[in-house]
């Protein structure tokens, strides 16, 4: 039992750091972290493109994929180092829907044609995906979805409405859960299909999130014709594939490294925020609360390591990895709220973009991205299986209740 890194690990860490310093240097980081263009910062600037190209060239774009599709042979410690270092430098990640959500389904259950067609484009971020799961009547109860696909010859005809579809307005393709058989148990009769967003019959309506952020959408599907070769795996087995995903990569979902960055930033902001002639950081009450969060986060980071160690020994992360999602989102939200609190009155300004472009930020330059992140982050405990659902899962699967 020990936490020490081997010499090989340390060498790898140095290599990673050098790579990051080259392709995602300090000045780029700061500019991105203080950008008030929250939504755009999720898209592709030239700096991001350069980073992704460099990743692909180095073979580090998709460390967790099978090697034959561009993955690495890293051991769990190396993966951990990679996650930690890239998070610390706030490096951009490949769009999660393609690289983390869809790809595992494809390389596990896809046809060769599907793999050859899609995996390279995802890896190079030349094809952006969105996820068509939730619907107006199917949120936490995902299996209650009503979008219907009826087979007509070589095509499925899809009708229905998807909701909360992140990035549908910029996506090239959507992977989608549709009902192909009715009358069956709710979880049965669902299929997993890939839909080109340029197909006639698709309408994307923006849903503005608090703070005017456009990130999620409503996607209307009206007689959308999808070739049967875009079915993944077997018909009516889609729920199994999607559910497998939900426990997959759950470690990443804790957002430990990201929260560590945010917490360090919160401390810096508190040190730079004036209070009674000193700084907010001198205030024992505030400091105590930050320290409490720090302990919470450290505990979670070790819990994550424990889960990683299980995986390394060949085990799958058990349902107890749900802890990571629950505590991770709670901590992330608490850090965001406390950062807003640190700004004091300067948490309020929410100027139009043009005002910032012309005259610079108001108060602290981190306010706008923090505020948008805080507002957007309220979704973290709702989307992807709300924390209440996660607790139901633990109750059943771990405690046997």
């Amino acid at each position, binding site marked *: 039992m020990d936490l020490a890194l081997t010499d090989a690990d340390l060498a790898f860490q140095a290599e990673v750091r050098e790579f990051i310093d080259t392709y995602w240097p300090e000045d780029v980081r700061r500019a991105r972290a203080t950008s008030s263009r929250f939504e755009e910062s999720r898209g592709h600037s030239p700096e991001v493109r350069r980073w992704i190209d460099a990743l692909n060239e180095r073979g580090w774009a998709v460390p967790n994929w099978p090697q034959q599709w561009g993955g690495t042979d890293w051991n769990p410690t190396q993966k951990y180092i990679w996650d930690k270092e890239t998070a610390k430098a706030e490096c951009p990640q490949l769009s999660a829907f393609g690289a983390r959500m869809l790809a595992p389904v494809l390389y596990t259950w896809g046809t060769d044609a599907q793999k050859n067609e899609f995996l390279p484009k995802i890896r190079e971020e030349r094809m952006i995906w969105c996820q068509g799961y939730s619907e107006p009547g199917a949120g936490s109860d995902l299996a209650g979805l009503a979008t219907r696909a009826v087979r007509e010859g070589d095509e499925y005809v899809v009708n229905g409405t998807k909701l909360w579809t992140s990035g549908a307005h910029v996506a090239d393709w959507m992977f989608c859960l549709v009902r192909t058989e009715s009358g069956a148990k709710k979880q049965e009769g669902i299929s997993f299909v890939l839909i080109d967003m340029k197909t006639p019959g698709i309408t994307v309506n923006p849903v*503005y999130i608090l703070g005017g952020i456009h990130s999620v959408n409503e996607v209307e599907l009206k007689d959308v014709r999808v070739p049967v070769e875009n079915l993944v795996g077997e018909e009516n087995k889609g729920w199994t594939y999607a559910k497998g995903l939900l426990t997959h990569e759950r470690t990443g979902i804790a957002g430990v490294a990201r929260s560590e960055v945010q917490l360090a930033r919160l401390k810096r902001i508190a040190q730079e925020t*004036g209070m009674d002639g000193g700084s907010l950081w001198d205030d024992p009450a505030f400091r105590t609360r930050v320290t409490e969060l720090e302990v919470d986060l450290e505990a979670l980071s070790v819990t994550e390591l424990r889960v990683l160690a299980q995986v390394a020994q060949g085990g799958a992360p058990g349902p107890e990895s749900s802890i990571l999602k629950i505590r991770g989102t709670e901590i992330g939200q608490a850090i965001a709220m406390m950062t807003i609190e640190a700004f004091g009155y300067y948490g309020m300004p929410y100027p139009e973009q043009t005002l910032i472009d012309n005259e610079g930020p108001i108060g602290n330059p981190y306010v706008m991205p923090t505020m948008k992140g805080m507002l957007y982050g*309220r979704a973290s405990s709702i989307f992807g299986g709300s924390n209440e659902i996660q607790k139901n899962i633990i109750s059943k699967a771990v405690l046997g209740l």
Partner: protein
Amino acid sequence: MDFSLSEEQTLLKDSLERFIQNDYDFDTRRKVMAGEEGFSRENWKQFAELGWLAVPFAEEDGGIGGGAIELMIVMEQLGRGLVVEPYLATVILAGGALKYAGNEAQKGAYLGAIIEGSKMGALAFAEPQSRFNLADVATTAAADGDGYVLSGHKAVVLGGPSADFFVVSARTSGGPRDADGITLFLVDGDAAGLSRRDYPTVDGLRASEVTLDGVKVGADAVLGTIGGGHAVLEQVIDEATLAVGAEAVGGMEVCYKDTVEYSKQRVQFGQPIGKFQVLQHRMVDMFMEYEQAKSMMYLAAMRLDEGYGAVAKKAVSGFKVQVGKSGRFVGQQAVQLHGGMGMTEELNIGHYFKRLTMIDTTFGNVDFHLKRYGAV
């Protein structure tokens, strides 16, 4: 011991309730906010006609002589409607300073205009370094003949964009953060050397960064005694704290009730989500937080009306602590229980959440008021 409203107070409450109910639905509010000024002059005129702008002012000044309880009644209802018109800025903050420190001439020049709705004001008290310390005033007022020259930066001045005049705190003597030596000045909105950078706030209001660059004012611009501005500020801000707290209580009421309603409608797993015991107890917690905040609101209002002093200050701080905690919990859980819908601009819930979050850091957060509560 009496928790009931007088007949006049009930009438006041009813008139606000009617307005919120009939004239201030969520879509109307959205349109108002999207306008140039971010609020409606029409509404403001109506506020004047209904007498709301006269509430806290003495009858000899044309007001109706309301106290803290009347302010509480008004703000609780404005909070229920998430009203964006700058009542707090003009009537409670700028008007409050005039009420407590103005001489006859100043009251004559400004209060009547406020009450009839023809002038709007703002209180410029915070500064970039000051956080919640009212004595932390770096803006200077240097004597200049009979008058003064003001220079400094006032931060996040609520209602700044629409202000015809400002009440500005500036240092006439003493060191940084001395309570003594702060003087309040009346400064015209178009005074030479005063510039504003206007912006919307995240919770739907408007505010300004106000820069004073050698603004000259006459001796008649001094509001109250020279060097004695801190005591006035403290009382005004305590009333304003009651006011935003009451606004939060109004917001919490909507949040918890709408959440209960939503939970009865929204079906998942074959039943209304309000049937799930975990959500039931969560809503009970929201209800309890709301009720506890309401209790502290009553206490603070009644204590302020008994007379301003240590007991009232403590009650106000206790209320703000409670509002900070309850408001956060209720706002966050309202969003959580509404699921994705709670996250949207389209539904009201998220807007209450934003306002509740901002109220937490207005006039001092929980830490600040806990300390103050423990000290007095």
